[in-house]
């Protein structure tokens, strides 16, 4: 029996192969790396990054980019902490307000990008400055958010046996991930996203609703960023305006390493999960190693990014 691999699946499969190799190599090198607890932490510690990366995947699938996500995460954490601690909001009300704000900012990005044909990276750069500025304006210092509700949330975790629990943040991420996979692969909206990434003009001529879809992906990315911020507040019980500095790069790296083409049209949300897990394995391996500093993670990420981008170029048909 011959197995045929479609050309566009090669990057995602390459990612999976790299993930398996890295995981096994790290597991054989370090004692206890294969434990369930470490595996669960891959999801728990980077839950907010994963939630953000799902939104970014949709933006990149249309051929766009969103640089504002890290700043929106930071802004969300500080604003919700201040709303809860100093204004007496119930966490749910504060989170609702921030999710709305994130979605509105994303919508504004989308409208500017589509209606006036502006470059996505510049528009979302403005969004980065705006969100960072507002966050720092609200408070330059970290604000603790102690609310009984957080205890309820932290208590809602899934027992996996062996005294290991899947924490609330990881559950949130897995739900967002599942919804993302469903939207990308099984809805009209998802198919339109791929069509726009393939060729915006063709999508338009096919009668697809390009305008609404393009605005919607940025709105979705804004929503996911705010949700990532919420996950981070729940995880740390605190808000800080400088949370999520450089997160946009990690999210884009996870998406690209996950096999999504930055030119749009090809890729998958599942690939992003693989990309994210690769970043998590690298981070965790460096922590296990002990003597290597955390900045090695940046270098390894950069090298992987380079390798995958060159791989993508090699697989792309020459124009």
């Amino acid at each position: 029996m011959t197995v045929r691999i479609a050309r566009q699946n090669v990057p995602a499969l390459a990612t999976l192969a790299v993930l398996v190799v890295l995981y096994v190599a790290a597991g054989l090198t370090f004692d206890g790396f294969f434990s369930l607890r470490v595996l669960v932490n891959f999801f728990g510690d980077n839950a907010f990054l994963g939630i953000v990366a799902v939104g970014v995947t949709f933006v990149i699938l249309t051929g766009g980019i969103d640089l504002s996500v890290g700043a929106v995460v930071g802004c969300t954490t500080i604003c919700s902490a201040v709303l809860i601690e100093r204004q007496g909001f119930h966490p749910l009300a504060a989170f609702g307000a921030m999710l709305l704000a994130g979605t509105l900012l994303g919508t504004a990005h989308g409208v500017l990008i589509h209606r006036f044909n502006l470059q996505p990276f510049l528009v979302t750069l403005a969004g980065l400055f705006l969100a960072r500025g507002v966050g720092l304006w609200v408070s330059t210092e970290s604000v603790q958010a102690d609310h009984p509700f957080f205890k309820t949330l932290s208590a809602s975790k899934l027992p996996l046996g062996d005294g290991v629990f899947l924490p609330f943040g990881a559950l949130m991420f897995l739900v967002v991930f599942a919804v993302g996979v469903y939207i990308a692969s099984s809805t009209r909206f998802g198919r339109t996203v791929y069509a726009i990434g393939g060729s915006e003009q063709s999508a338009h001529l096919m009668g697809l609703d390009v305008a609404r879809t393009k605005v919607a992906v940025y709105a979705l990315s804004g929503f996911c960023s705010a949700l990532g911020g919420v996950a981070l507040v729940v995880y740390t019980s605190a808000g800080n305006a400088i949370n999520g500095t450089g997160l946009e790069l990690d999210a884009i790296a996870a998406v690209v390493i996950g096999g999504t083409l930055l030119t749009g049209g090809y890729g998958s949300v599942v690939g992003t999960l693989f990309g994210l897990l690769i970043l998590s394995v690298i981070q965790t391996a460096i922590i296990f190693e002990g003597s290597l500093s955390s900045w090695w993670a940046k270098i390894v990420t950069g090298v992987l990014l380079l390798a995958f981008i060159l791989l993508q170029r090699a697989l792309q048909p020459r124009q």
Partner: protein
Amino acid sequence: MKVHPIAYSVAALALLLLFNAFFTDGFFAIELRDGRFYGSLVDVLNRAAPVMLLSLGMTLVIATRGVDLSVGAVMAIAGAVAAVLANGDPGKALGWLQVSHSVPLVVLCALGVATLAGVFNGVLVGRFGVQPIVATLILMVAGRGVAQLVTEGQIVLFENPSLELLANGSVAAVPTPVVIVALAFVTVAVLVRKTALGLFIEAVGSNAKAARLAGVASAGVVIAVYAVSGLMAGVAGVIACANISAADSGTTGLYLELDAILAVAVGGTSLAGGRFSLAGSLVGAVLMQALTTTILTRGVSPHATLVAKALIIVAVILLQSPALRASLRAPKEQAA
């Protein structure tokens, strides 16, 4: 009526200065002290120097329809190399390279590394056809890691009065960074306006395929502009580390790539490539710094600067947007 693209930024700068003339006491006062000019205006120029340098390289890159996101990280690398070499501790990374006795050699090594980083970007874009945002993203992500590799994750201090002069000294009473900017501007301007290079850059940016068919070595031009951008980032990085007599890889040049892109856009160079204005970018950089200084002297929260910058980016790119212009023009044409 055709307005020269630089006119908007000059007008905005003039308005801002006018505002300060009325509302900020002593904004225009300049005094000579210890053989060096002091005053708000000098301060604005001095503080704008790193972004002005970055914006010179960025202008050329943007003119080829590219963008260089790595300049902030390259600044950190150059600063790290300069600091470690000036420190001269043989036990550290690069310790075998004993050049701490010679400031020119230290600076040369730092600039060489920065230029190499630029060439790396240029090869990815020009040779392998990778999108500029993506290609330069790699160094933006990994560059700070490399810088921390050089400094071994620490803040490296050094004592070297002659190197510090690059940031804190003065030439003919003018702060050295401003003099360096002037020299860099003249060099780059002569290079692109007195040779055919400028024409090639605009040709590649307007229509890369047509340029190639017309016999322009597109790949070479692209590599050259990214190399210049890397070099400029290197100069800015050396000045930044000389200023504080230390290299802090985590914060040197952080977000400055965004300021540089902003300066270029405000200066009237279209982000869609083609025609460019080096002087416009310098005015743009000064305008952004003057705005920051004004906000600070008015006692407004410094974080308002970020919000102001966000609004300015949107305003500028909307003004440049053909779609907006077309929709503004359409009703008039119908009336005519």
